[in-house]
């Protein structure tokens, strides 16, 4: 994982993303595209904490669900969507910060970390499921148990509660948020904080021996990942117009991990690739009944773990680099040959 920033590639990447944003609605309906983008932001959040911080979180769905529920609850209580949207980022980020602080200051690592995050997700899932009785109210919002929370204010133009952002506009907003999230993380991982976090992900003990407080860095990174997952949750709530306990489910958590494995976590683009490709596959598989979705995803996961453990994005990048190197060496050979040919030509004259 090289840290050298390459602004040229970044500009090309953003340009291509904008082209995709404008072109894709001609091929896939924007309602589906919006969901794929929301999934991409969720995958990006796990890609950050796992790929760069080395923290394998089995419960990214917990922050996603918290974001969605926070948005729904605050939207019902406040009405206008701007503040609920911000709170849907702040609440999961704070929750992740507290959970992270408990885990990292408690020196939990590896499998214990995975177990704790998984258990927290399950607890939230069970809890939200059991909130059907009318006592479970936050302000005027009833949590609704298994049925979830419907009928809340969806995303609107800031300060204009009646100007809803939906259909194609919602898709564009999601895409722009994805691009901004990507750019934000791009600069974050290239900042001193990001570089230290990557170092910690590589070798925690060495980072400590150098003098970095590993616990602090991991907690902050975990909170950033939680906040980003919350942002995806808020967008999801606005997209689905209902939030249900299924957002906290094990299946949701597992899916995010599979997206990251397939896309690759050593690059920020990896989780996005994974989420889009597998999300699309799920969409098309959902239109038939012959093959079971889970079976297909299981086979894909096994294939990637066995044959392409780095994931798609790093593999594509390495093939691209090899092609460029081959092109350069051919050009250099031709350059070296050129003076000799000129010399021969000159002598022949």
């Amino acid at each position: 994982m090289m840290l050298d920033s390459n602004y040229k590639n970044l500009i090309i990447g953003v340009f291509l993303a904008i082209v995709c944003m404008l072109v894709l609605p001609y091929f896939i309906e924007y309602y589906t595209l919006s969901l794929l983008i929301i999934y991409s932001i969720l995958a990006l959040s796990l890609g950050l904490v796992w790929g760069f911080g080395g923290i394998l979180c089995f419960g990214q769905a917990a922050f996603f669900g918290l974001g969605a529920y926070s948005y729904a609850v605050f939207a019902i209580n406040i009405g206008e969507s701007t503040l609920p949207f911000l709170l849907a980022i702040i609440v999961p980020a704070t929750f992740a910060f507290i959970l992270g602080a408990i885990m990292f200051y408690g020196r939990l690592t590896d499998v214990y970390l995975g177990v704790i995050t998984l258990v927290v997700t399950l607890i939230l899932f069970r809890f939200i499921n059991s909130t059907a009785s009318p006592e479970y109210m936050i302000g005027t919002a009833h949590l609704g148990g298994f049925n979830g929370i419907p009928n809340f204010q969806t995303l609107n133009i800031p300060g204009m509660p009646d100007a809803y952002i939906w259909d194609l506009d919602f898709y564009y907003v999601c895409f722009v948020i994805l691009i901004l999230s990507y750019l934000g993380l791009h600069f974050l991982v290239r900042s001193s904080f990001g570089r230290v976090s990557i170092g910690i992900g590589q070798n925690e003990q060495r980072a400590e021996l150098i003098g970095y407080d590993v616990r602090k860095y991991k907690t902050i990174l975990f909170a950033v990942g939680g906040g980003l997952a919350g942002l995806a949750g808020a967008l999801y709530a606005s997209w689905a117009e209902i939030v249900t306990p299924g957002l906290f489910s094990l299946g949701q958590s597992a899916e995010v991990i599979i997206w990251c494995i397939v896309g690759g976590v050593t690059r920020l683009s990896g989780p996005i690739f994974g989420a889009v490709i597998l999300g699309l596959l799920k969409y098309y598989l959902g239109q038939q009944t012959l093959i079971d979705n889970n079976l297909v995803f299981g086979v894909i996961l096994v294939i990637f773990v066995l044959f392409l453990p780095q994931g798609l994005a790093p593999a594509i990048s390495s093939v691209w680099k090899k092609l460029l190197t081959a092109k350069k060496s051919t050009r250099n050979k031709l350059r070296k040959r050129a003076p000799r040919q000129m010399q021969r030509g000159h002598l022949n004259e």
Partner: protein
Amino acid sequence: MNEIVLETHNLNMHFGGVKAVNNVDFTLRENELRCLIGPNGAGKSTFFKCLTGLNKPTSGEIYIRGEETTHWHTHQISRLGIGIKTQVPNVMDGLSVWENIWLSARRYHDVKQANRRVEEVIERIKIGDITKKLLGELAHGQRQRVELAIVLAADPWLVILDEPAAGMTGQDVEIMVDIIREINRSAAMIIVEHDMQFIQSIANQVTVFYQGSILMEDHVDNVLADQKVRDVYLGRNV
């Protein structure tokens, strides 16, 4: 006489019934180079881990420049200006040599100064030809040198090394000896080692560990000539 920079009082580290470090009183003075030697299982590496915060002592005290650090975390001890190198090269395999050293320099300097510091250290340790390589691609000896560069990038006044020459070939060992001598001009050093030839080429004062306690502390020549030390290394009971 130089000021005492590190001392331990009645330091103990017990694992169940095993006394890996047993009532150790140890003193290190400014700019001193001290080698800790002893047969396998003598407790030198456990003592090293206690000093660096990697193990929390069962009892006793550690003072660094007068400050009690007995139960401090590793990063807090490191921030006092102490460079630490562990027995197995402890590096970030997925990052380049330059990046590994930069992370160390950045801890104590701003970005510009850190960049400059990295260049200085690379020149000092003579690893200019491998700066862009990933640590995972390097040979053992090169990894040891890079780890030393990581340690030096933080400008430490005390350097603690655990078996810096372990697994190195003859030429690499010679380079390491030169580097250690150079570091010792500006920093006190504690070196845990069991290679006698290596110790003879770098040390004056040697502390011999045996069964968790200090058996002897003296000049390297006296230590090597001592019958008790010979018996310890030959596996005889003292």
